């Protein structure tokens, strides 16, 4: 089945948010939105399920902390204790204040990098993937809202979207289905 879609382009993020709220209130279905930067509150306005990325980040942080503790304990206490500034290197807890910067750094490093990688994987953004972006201007200064036509009247829908402040409206007839 050829799915008909309407692409409405907005030029301002606040306008887009307002349009999203109005469109959803009017019971039209928004299938996708393309923005040049993350718009605060957009996920909430679209009614998307809360992201679980923060939980993964917390777990990665715990991993990083564990790695740091084990690493410093192995390096500086068990394998090759070094006398640095006369600080006790016999037990982990005695020498711990010196390890805290490393524990902090590795926690942040693991949490940050692995979270970004998770985000890429979850968004299917692996290397050599072709962009799905329907309009290159959405990488610059325009916001594109994709609305399913379904069995609504195209004229009324276009008129409605125009009233929400869209600066450009185009009908897309998609041959292949996703």
């Amino acid at each position: 089945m050829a799915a008909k879609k309407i692409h409405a382009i907005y030029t301002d993020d606040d306008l887009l948010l307002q349009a999203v709220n109005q469109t959803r209130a009017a019971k039209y279905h928004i299938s996708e939105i393309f923005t040049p930067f993350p718009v605060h509150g957009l996920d909430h306005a679209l009614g998307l399920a809360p992201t679980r990325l923060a939980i993964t980040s917390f777990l990665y942080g715990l991993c990083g902390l564990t790695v740091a503790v084990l690493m410093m304990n192995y390096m500086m206490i068990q394998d090759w204790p070094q006398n640095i500034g006369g600080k006790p290197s016999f037990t982990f807890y005695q020498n711990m204040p010196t390890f805290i910067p490393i524990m902090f750094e590795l926690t942040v490093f693991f949490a940050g990098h692995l979270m970004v990688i998770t985000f890429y994987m979850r968004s299917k953004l692996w290397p050599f993937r072709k962009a799905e972006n329907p309009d290159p201007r959405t990488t610059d200064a325009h916001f594109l809202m994709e609305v399913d036509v379904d069995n609504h009247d195209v004229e009324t829908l276009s008129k409605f979207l125009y009233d929400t402040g869209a600066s450009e409206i185009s009908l897309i007839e998609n041959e292949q289905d996703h």
Partner: protein
Amino acid sequence: MYTLPSKLKLFSIVLMVLGLAGIIFGFMTTPKTIDDVKKILAEQEAHHGENHAVDHKEDTANFIDIARGEEGYSGAAMEHATDLSAEGHGASSHEEHVLHQLQTRPWSATFVAAFFFMMIALGVLVFYAIQFASQAGWSPVLYRVMEGITSYLLPGSIIVFVLVIFAGEHFYPWQNADLVAEDKILQGKSGYLNFPFFVIRAAIYLLGWNIYRYYSRKNSLAQAEANNFDHYRKNFKASVFFLIFFLLTEATMAWDWFMSMTPHWYSTLFAWYVFATMFVSSITVIALVTIHLKSKGLLSFVSDRHLHDLAKYMFAFSIFWTYLWFSQFMLIWYSNIPEEVTYFIIRIQEYQGLFFGMLILNFVFPMLVLMNSDFKKVPWFVVIAAVFILVGHYIDVFLLVMPSTVGHNWGFGIPEIAALLFFAGLFILVVGNGLGKVSLRPKNDPFIKESENYHF
């Protein structure tokens, strides 16, 4: 319009009466003569038997003596370098030294509580000034709440002013002329640490802070009646200059009132550290007062998103405080220079539970409770975190003052609790009245509409 509930008013007055009685009791019952002290020490001796077994001092002393190959080296070094006690050098005998510390205790107890509540009002004033200077769009709905809390600044700062002026040698050993006469370091610092200049500085802080508070409150109220933004512009300018003034005076205030209690010791981070304590406690109190007023249904225009932002600040500044605490601790611990490290030796040896407990209260708990974004919008979660933070930072101020002034002769008894009760009561009474004078909705502020419709 808010009115302090009569029950809360009665409660605060009861707190003040109890507190005042306790403070007076504390001052009346300090030992007056060396004989009193000898009696107290003899009593302590009877209880102390087992405590001495855990004392590591002798081990370290021997270890250093052996390393140096010199009998009594560590003892001599500690004698010269130590700032463990305010009056370590001047006192002619151990008993006299203990007498001095016991007489200082009610002063310190009162000062800790007085400063704790004063710094909350001051920190809120700074937060308020930052909102104006940065022309923040989210916070104008909270202006009247902040102004209500800063109404405590005038009485609070006057009490703190009187305390630091009259505490004299109880707090500040550099005011003892005999001590300075035989101490080269203190002579070198006497250009800054002398009594007239100390009083002048304290007066400048008192005037500067209170003038800004008076002026900005006046403009803020006038803005509600005005039909242009002149008052807002005046407030913007005043806030910028106040912030410059504050950051300078806050640093010297921290040196004057806290660091000079141990005049040999110094830390370049100290002013920031005191600021972090002040700021995180203040934002916490803004959140608490907001939750209280909202539960009364008086802040219908404040949404959970404003609370979310306040909680974010509590979270962020708890971590900021820990960062400064650790930076100061690690550098001093690592370099281990006698005249620096004494600051932490006494705090870890004599105040261990409080010293590390404070870290858990101020860092671990707020971090875990406030980490989740949804929890920051739930009032009772924020209240739990706020209680941890406020208790933790009271302990923090306690640990700034007590080890430097009363050393190991500290306790948490009638003087401390009474001072806490008295100033808590005064704070509730003054802030409650301060909140009650005008409508809680700041009309005509240029950003009020943005603030009311605030989404992140």
